[in-house]
């Protein structure tokens, strides 16, 4: 059985790499789009296999544990559904001539490389490997954001590039400091960079060095999470890149960066002398929630608006993990999964809407419920879910978070509720204009792939009604691990 687990890990990493090479070489965008879907499906299967087989011992570079397996499953699942959406999205881009077949080859290769980088970052048992993987993920997304080569896309890619590079540079400095802190205890060499040995011996590390390291890591990886005030790249990158990339950025890459922050938080928690990372994360989370909530009102671009909503939700998740404790951690985990599913579903809908209407301006899109009922009502469901209304899963996680915050630090709940309400108002206000009213723009039928969107929304809906007990026990177990 040991072999099959190793095989699954290797498959999760190798399939995207091989697929990246294949789609770069093969001609014909229909073929490569199918190959893209097949490869992500195969990766998803390999990831699901991890649940069935016993786990191997963590190695020096890779590992599987209770925490990262959830992230990997989510990552490969959304990666798969997005590739299905992407196939119909790019067919339209080819038809309208916005992208050429050469661009598409490049795009698919980058998509698979991004999947590889994210899976590597999640599987890494080594702080160095994790850093390299996050850097690779940044690079591939920068290239995809700039793919349209318009003024806006280039500006967005450049901004993302510079801010992302500075972020990962800071994260590397923090990584070096962690190594410095671990070296006296674990000795020179690879051992002092391996998660499992770091966590096991963290109590003996120099707390002062760990504290400084965490500040750098939080700022560095926090830039990639999109926490205010380090978020400046995020709305541009979401608005100007191809919509499947917006979905993957919001749904997955932000989570991967957050996963890195969580790992380092665990490291600090294992050292009694180190500062509590909670208050730092709570502050950054709350700032992001309130800032993004107000920014939602002034948005005129539909993708940009949902990008700000992503900042808000990453703020909520960071806040939840900052508060800590079994209940808040549980809420944070659930919220992360729900946000990934909902936000990517929204971007699937928005991608088709922007294509059929030929614009991303909110003011130019009206009456979707009349012109494109399926897309319009899906958007309604998505926005209702993301705004935190019952019966969707996000309501559950926000409710859990609020009740545990009230119980633990009641005064912190006030700004959080305030931010949530402000964002709620903004989203519903814009939704009203988009979906109802006098229809404008093209009423041409749209060749959309509804399945990924419906699947995500159905999952979020189901989670809001009923969470299967095995899932609850699983999440509770991880929440306890997170401390």
């Amino acid at each position, binding site marked *: 059985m040991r072999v099959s687990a190793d095989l699954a890990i290797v498959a999760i990493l190798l399939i995207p790499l091989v697929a990246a090479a294949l789609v770069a070489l093969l001609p014909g965008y229909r073929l490569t789009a199918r190959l893209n879907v097949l490869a992500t499906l195969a990766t998803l299967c390999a990831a699901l296999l991890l649940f069935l087989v016993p786990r191997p011992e963590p190695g020096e570079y890779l590992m599987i544990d209770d925490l990262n397996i959830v992230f990997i499953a989510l990552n490969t699942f959304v990666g798969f559904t997005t590739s299905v959406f992407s196939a119909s999205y790019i067919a339209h881009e080819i038809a309208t001539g916005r992208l050429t077949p050469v661009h598409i080859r490049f795009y698919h290769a980058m998509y698979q490389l991004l999947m590889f980088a994210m899976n590597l970052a999640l599987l890494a048992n080594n702080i160095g490997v994790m850093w390299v993987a996050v*850097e690779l993920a940044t690079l591939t997304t920068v290239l995809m954001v700039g793919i349209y080569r318009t003024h806006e896309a280039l500006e967005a890619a450049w901004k993302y590039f510079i801010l992302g*590079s500075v972020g990962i540079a800071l994260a590397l400095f923090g990584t070096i400091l962690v190594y410095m802190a671990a070296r006296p205890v674990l000795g020179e060499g690879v051992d002092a960079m391996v998660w499992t040995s770091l966590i096991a011996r963290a109590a003996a590390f120099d707390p002062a060095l760990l504290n400084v390291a965490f500040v750098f890591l939080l700022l560095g990886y926090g830039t990639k999470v999109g926490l205010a005030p380090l978020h400046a790249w995020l709305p541009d990158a979401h608005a100007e890149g191809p919509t499947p990339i917006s979905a993957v950025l919001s749904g997955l890459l932000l989570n991967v960066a957050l996963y890195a922050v969580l790992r380092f938080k665990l490291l600090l928690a294992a050292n009694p002398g180190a500062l509590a990372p909670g208050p730092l994360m709570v502050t950054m989370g709350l700032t992001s929630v309130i800032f993004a909530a107000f920014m939602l009102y002034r948005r005129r671009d539909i993708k940009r608006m949902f990008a700000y909503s992503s900042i808000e939700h990453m703020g909520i998740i960071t806040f939840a993990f900052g508060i800590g404790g079994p209940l808040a951690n549980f809420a944070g985990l659930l919220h992360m999964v729900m946000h990934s599913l909902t936000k990517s579903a929204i971007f699937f809908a928005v991608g088709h809407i922007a294509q059929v209407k030929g614009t991303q301006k909110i003011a130019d899109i009206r009456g979707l419920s009349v012109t494109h009922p399926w897309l319009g009502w899906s958007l309604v469901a998505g926005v209702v879910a993301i705004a935190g209304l019952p019966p969707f899963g996000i309501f559950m996680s926000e409710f859990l978070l609020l009740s545990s915050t009230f119980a633990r630090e009641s005064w912190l709940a006030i700004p959080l509720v305030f931010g949530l309400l402000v964002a709620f108002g903004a989203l519903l206000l814009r939704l009203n204009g988009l979906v109802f009213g006098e229809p404008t723009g093209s009423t041409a039928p749209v060749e959309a792939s509804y399945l990924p969107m419906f699947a995500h929304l159905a999952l979020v809906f189901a989670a809001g009604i009923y969470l299967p007990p095995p899932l609850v026990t699983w999440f509770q177990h991880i929440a306890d691990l997170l401390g």
Partner: protein
Amino acid sequence: MSALVFDIAHLLAGGLVLVSFLLLYQARLFALLNIFALHAMVLTLSVAWQAYVQDAPHLYVTAVIALTFKAIAIPVALHRIIQRLGIHREIENVVGGGLTMLAGMGLVALSMVVMLRVTASADPLAREDLAFALSVVLLGMLMMVTRRNAVSQVIGFMSLENGLVLAATGAKGMPLVVEFSVAFSILIAFIVIGIFLFRIRERFDTVDIGALDEYRGERR
């Protein structure tokens, strides 16, 4: 012998901070490139010295990468790009030179205070190296903030990255240092290719980032 070892490492790391200051007030792009090449040379010497002192042959690889890639290839490539784009004129700074230098001194003082205090238990060589490395990183960031020109922002980023390499080599026995420097080289190569391929000049008629701000997505 050990005092000499320490002194030379100290000299080279301190030299890197000094060259970072030189970068801060350069007003012309070509001069900036030359000073950056000097920055990379000092880094090469520092890394090679660490490789010798720590008896770590893999660090020589890092030194060679620093020399060939950052001290020679990138400055030459940027030199050509600047000539092609015809932008070898004065650089506009957001903040004046004097103020930038003052801010730079403040940042160096800050990194000394922070790093020397928290690394009290580490060995003195690594301590000083780390403090200098943080200074170089912060000065690089300061440069990226105070310059509006895309090319000088890239140079600011590369000097920041040199500080990281200094820190990584100073951390004795750290694995993956070569991999880090390769990863960063790829990143920088992408940025440089990006400047050229995206033809910021053709698209915007300037490489001044300030002009890019006009193309906010909201305006569409």
